[in-house]
């Protein structure tokens, strides 16, 4: 039996309190549309950055592991806001 687990399966084993009202990471689609390298797509451990049908990178902030990798690799500056989730929201590690 394979030990491989796809990302959604792995994220399903973590505990999240998703803040539907207020994303803690915000992209500027106009800037992301100019980005050709999209390093965020490969680097995000939770694979939350996806190139959409329009060819522009989008983000689903639910499932964010709050590691900060996207903020570091973003070259084009499309991440216009990077903060932590509001109080009590986001991932809660039970192991760490």
């Amino acid at each position, binding site marked *: 039996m394979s030990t491989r687990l796809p990302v959604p399966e792995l994220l399903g084993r973590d505990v999240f309190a998703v803040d539907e009202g207020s994303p803690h990471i915000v992209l500027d689609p106009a800037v992301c549309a100019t980005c050709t390298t999209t390093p965020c797509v490969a*680097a995000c451990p939770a*694979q939350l950055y996806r190139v959409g049908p329009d060819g522009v990178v989008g983000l689903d902030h639910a499932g964010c592991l709050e590691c900060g990798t996207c903020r570091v*690799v973003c070259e084009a500056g499309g991440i216009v806001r990077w903060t932590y989730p509001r109080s009590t929201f986001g991932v809660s590690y039970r192991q760490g």
Partner: protein
Amino acid sequence: MSDDADVDVIVVGAGPAGSACAHRLAREGRSVVLVERGTTAGAKNVSGGRLYTYALEALEEGLTRQAPFERAVVREQIMLVDGDRAMQVSVLPSGDSDPAGVPASVTVLRARFDAWLAGRAEGEGALLATGVTVDSLLMEHDRVVGIVADGEEMRASVVVAADGVSSLLAREAGLTGPLAPASVGVGVKEVVALDAAALEARFGVGPGEGAATLLLGCTGGVHGGGFMYTNAASISIGVVVSPGDLAAAGRTPHGLLQDLKEHPAVRPYLAGGESVEYSAHLVREDGVRGVPRRLAREGFLVTGEAAGFVLNLGYTVRGMDLALVSGIAAAEAVLAGGDLDAAYHAALERHGLMATMRGADGYRDLLHLHRLYGTYPGLALDVATSMFAVDGGPPPPLRRLVRDVRRRHGVPLRGLVRDGLVGVRSL
């Protein structure tokens, strides 16, 4: 405390640095609020994770014995991987236990460990406020006078930022700038639950004992490596890789970790285990060069990982011990009063932390040798497998074997010598 301050000190972040700082300050009679954005201390924290216990003993003698650690590390393993092949070196015993029998290093899981350490700070009199995300610093006349959290102000004589590798507060205070992709590794980890007896049999350790395993060559040629740590009844397995190189290499941290779990030399360790958590964390890899010159300004100082106190030595990553010591030094600087930055630097020197950071600088050059992550593990495995291949003919001279393998991998003798010199100089 100044007249309009609510408390003497606000410490932001209840990880090892923040809790150590709060612990020391509260013990010395300062009023301290320890603010943590997780709903419990440790809920946002991730590490490999191995803790070197000298730092816990520096905070309070005898603390290690009381700590909820997973296992005492008695076995070190280094595994070189190339394709489906692997070779492994084991070192035991690991380190020296001190005369009192305190193990030199232990494995920890942060949800449990950090909650305990924050509880110790509370025991000294610090007030722990969990589930509170700090929005910003409160500034007056170019001086930090407190924090704003959930729209409410809290004032203190000093704010200590122990808010981790992505420290928003150190950046806001102008002490740090953006991190370059080459200055960090992205770490991903799974915790795989496993029966304790099976784990002990597989790693060759006794009850309460554990192993630390470093893996090289498992990152698809991308700068980085893998790790396995044994917990009480689980294995922490992960990879740390250079995030800026992933797109060009067509790899992902998640994919590399899944490949690693399936490797024929790794899979037997995990067999029958159940993955119970997936986590990620950035690891600073710029050593002393990543520590800002100024670590404090009026009413504010930065400590732990937020201040760059992390060392990747190749064979081990040190973060939590440096965090603990820097947190203690930060507390001593606050207690000393006067020029915070000068007092903090003096305390960091006194504890030997800056010497440790400076002493490890050469490792950075070694870890920048690109061949370390693909070519050299493959080369070593070619030599090793050829040595053990017996076909009835005379054994080839080892020198010729090495030369042939080196040529096959396209490594010129000059390149090997040059890399070797970098290695010798840095170690």
